């Protein structure tokens, strides 16, 4: 689908689309057209290349691979592999965060969110007066769980999970053993001529969903809150306008806020600006990009002097670099697209990678280590100064300052939202009961370029939902798209249905709430759980739906598996390579309703998707006795 910007895929963010179309560098938005013919077998998940007899593909003439694996086995195997990889990514993120908390605690460093440490300690049943020792104990408890063998169940699951869910998971036999072992065994199980049981593999996905959600998402958020400070609701600028060419700009990509903790502190130290001024810049600025940028935005109240704002999501990052305003790219995890490399080279932007999990081909590897933090942060600062000096004379800076908004409402978390509501969920529940808010929709996950274009499905679906008085909560690259088109600014209230509009205008809030990174899907789960607790119901009874309309990555599939384990309806615009198996598709879209209460809803039409989600909310309201 090409439009007036010939050759570039459409974006909901038309300013961005125009900017990309004007560039003389190639981006993912340009490459979509040359990749538009897809392999039908791949799309349906029925290509298997686990052995040298393959790749085998399923056709009417060849319903089994050479080994005898049918479509159900092949699809389930591919799906579990993807979920295991995605869960592994989140576990890696938590492992680094918990390890950092442990080392920070041992060094008697400063916690910016002590209340969260107390909350975690209470949750874990740790009674320890010394805060640093408490930090060590909390981090150790998490790490011990991650490293358990698969046969030993992780201890914190029961403390983190909502009781009705925990009981159900136990009954279903899907409580996770050690997180890393569960990921490891997911890979083993799906290797050549091992498991052929699709149902067993799908249940393993649910287990990995629990690992992902409670550990990779929730605990990573909370551990980072301890070290980096709790989110606080505030108004912040978003989009390309946050880039000020007068500064030495360091762009961040990835998912591990903990890794940047020391650098952030260095960049607000006294005297640091003088080093920038010595080379003609006003100071240093961190430019948020991808989910770690969302994390910085969420906790931005603690770093207002150095954090410029969130520029954009995964598929905005190439264009951010192409403005020429970025002097150094610091990356540490995924959503660091390989496509940024050639643009960084052309714009003479130094690239430093802090975690070899996401080592970029043209980046220097400066592996993160708490022990070497002083030295590493100093090296980053020196490289940024040097890059600024070298490139600014030669590179034209062209930043579309009209892009984005100055009044994005950010800093939402389970605590800050409850605080905003007066310390209780009752006001939200009252609004739902009265029908002022028909229900809640978590529009979460990634952005891709194929569900109608960059952020197109996400933005259109969100508009449809708020029009129907459904309050939207967003976490992930989806929120990056939604904020840049203004849906997270208070003025967006006028796009909502009358009832929701009235609520938003009286509170001065937008109809789409920005929880930041994909990790914050874990915060949405906490909110859902606490609301369910107040109502005395299990999660599937809530008028709450999830949509990851533009899911992109394996991590999104792990997040989605968490949603299914929680018993929630999950809409996807594109099927997760599963339609080739009637059995897998049936389990995920129908049978799971009777097992966990969850289901995947595949719908690639925006209005029909909104109809389906609204109908589910309606059914749940009726079941709760609400009109």
């Amino acid at each position, binding site marked *: 689908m090409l439009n007036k910007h010939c050759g570039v895929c459409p974006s909901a963010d038309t300013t961005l689309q125009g900017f990309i179309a004007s560039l003389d560098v190639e981006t993912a938005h340009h490459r979509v057209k040359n990749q*538009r*013919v*897809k*392999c*039908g*077998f*791949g799309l349906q998940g029925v290509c298997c290349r686990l052995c040298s007899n393959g790749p085998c*593909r399923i*056709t009417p*003439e*060849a319903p089994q691979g050479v080994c005898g694996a049918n479509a159900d086995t092949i699809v389930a195997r591919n799906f579990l592999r993807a979920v295991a990889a995605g869960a592994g990514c989140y576990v890696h993120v938590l492992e680094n965060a918990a390890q950092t908390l442990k080392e920070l605690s041992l060094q008697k460093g400063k916690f910016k969110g002590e209340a969260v440490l107390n909350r975690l300690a209470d949750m874990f049943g740790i009674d320890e007066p010394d805060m640093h020792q408490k930090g060590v104990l909390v981090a150790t408890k998490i790490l011990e769980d991650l490293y358990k063998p698969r046969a030993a169940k992780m201890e914190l699951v029961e403390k983190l999970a909502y009781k009705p869910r925990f009981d159900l998971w136990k009954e279903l036999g899907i409580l996770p053993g050690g997180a890393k072992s569960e990921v490891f065994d997911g890979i083993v199980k799906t290797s050549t001529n091992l498991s052929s049981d699709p149902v067993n593999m799908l249940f393993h996905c649910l287990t990995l969903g629990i690992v992902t959600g409670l550990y990779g998402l929730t605990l990573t958020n909370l551990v980072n809150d301890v070290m980096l400070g709790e989110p606080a609701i505030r108004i912040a600028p978003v989009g390309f306008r946050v880039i000020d060419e007068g500064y030495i700009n360091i762009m961040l990509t990835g998912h591990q806020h903990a890794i940047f903790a020391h650098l952030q502190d260095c960049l607000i130290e006294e005297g640091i600006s003088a080093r920038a001024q010595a080379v003609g810049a006003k100071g240093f600025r961190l430019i948020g990009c991808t989910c770690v940028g969302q994390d910085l935005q969420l906790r931005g109240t603690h770093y207002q002097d150095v954090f410029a704002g969130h520029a954009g999501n995964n598929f905005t990052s190439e264009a951010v670099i192409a403005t020429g305003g970025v002097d150094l790219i610091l990356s540490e995890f995924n959503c660091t697209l390989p496509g940024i490399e050639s643009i960084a080279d052309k714009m003479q932007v130094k690239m430093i990678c802090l975690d070899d999990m996401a080592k970029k081909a043209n980046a220097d590897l400066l592996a993160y280590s708490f022990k070497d933090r002083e030295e590493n942060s100093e090296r980053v600062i020196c490289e940024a100064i040097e890059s600024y000096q070298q490139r600014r004379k030669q590179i034209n800076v062209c930043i579309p300052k009209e892009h984005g908004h100055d009044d994005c409402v950010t800093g939402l978390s389970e605590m800050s939202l409850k605080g905003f509501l007066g310390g209780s969920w009752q006001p939200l529940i009252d609004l739902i009961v009265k029908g002022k808010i028909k229900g809640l929709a978590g529009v979460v996950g990634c952005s891709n370029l194929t569900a109608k274009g960059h952020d197109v499905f996400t933005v259109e679906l969100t508009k449809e939902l708020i029009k129907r008085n459904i309050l939207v909560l967003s976490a992930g690259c989806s929120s990056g798209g939604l904020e840049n088109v203004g849906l997270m600014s208070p003025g967006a209230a006028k796009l909502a249905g009358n009832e929701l509009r009235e609520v938003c205008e009286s509170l001065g809030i937008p109809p789409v709430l920005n929880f930041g990174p994909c990790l914050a899907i874990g915060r949405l789960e906490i909110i859902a759980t606490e609301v369910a607790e107040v109502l005395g119901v299990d999660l599937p009874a809530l008028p709450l739906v999830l949509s990851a309309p533009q899911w992109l990555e394996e991590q999104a599939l792990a997040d989605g598996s968490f949603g299914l384990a929680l018993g929630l309806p999950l809409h996807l615009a594109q099927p997760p390579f599963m339609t080739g198996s009637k059995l897998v598709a049936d389990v995920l879209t129908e049978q799971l309703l009777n097992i966990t209460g969850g289901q995947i809803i595949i719908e690639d039409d925006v209005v029909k998707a909104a109809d389906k989600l609204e109908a589910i909310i309606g059914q749940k309201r009726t079941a709760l006795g609400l009109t």
Partner: protein
Amino acid sequence: MKRIIIDKSLCMGCLNCTIACMSEHSSGSKSIYELDLEDAANEGRNHITLDQCNKPTPIFCRHCDDPECVTACMTGAMTKNADTGKVSYDEEHCAACFMCVMSCPYGVLKPSSQKDKKVIRCDYCQDREIPRCVENCPTEAIKFVEVDK
């Protein structure tokens, strides 16, 4: 004579036909393992496009009964064999005017992406009994079948 017959409804857009063609016409090994998928010199003589409904649509040379490419060719490089039905192309006689490319009603002929001023067109894989694209189509969306003259 034999022709490639296309059943569009069976095409899944896997591009196996295209990579098979690239491999068969590659200057090096004919092994699919050794086909350099990043080398623009490896060009397919067929392609898959998407129709208005996003349905994959194979575009193959028809070796037409009344081939426009042959009519348009002023040097005689493009010829039709009345017995086999095959349209052949003789690079040596080609003046690279690309009138054949412009006149092909299916848009299947194309100039080489290299600087050698040649035309890229289907040759039914020269001496192969079955063209390699047909052999490599997993859904039988393309078949090599005997048709009446």
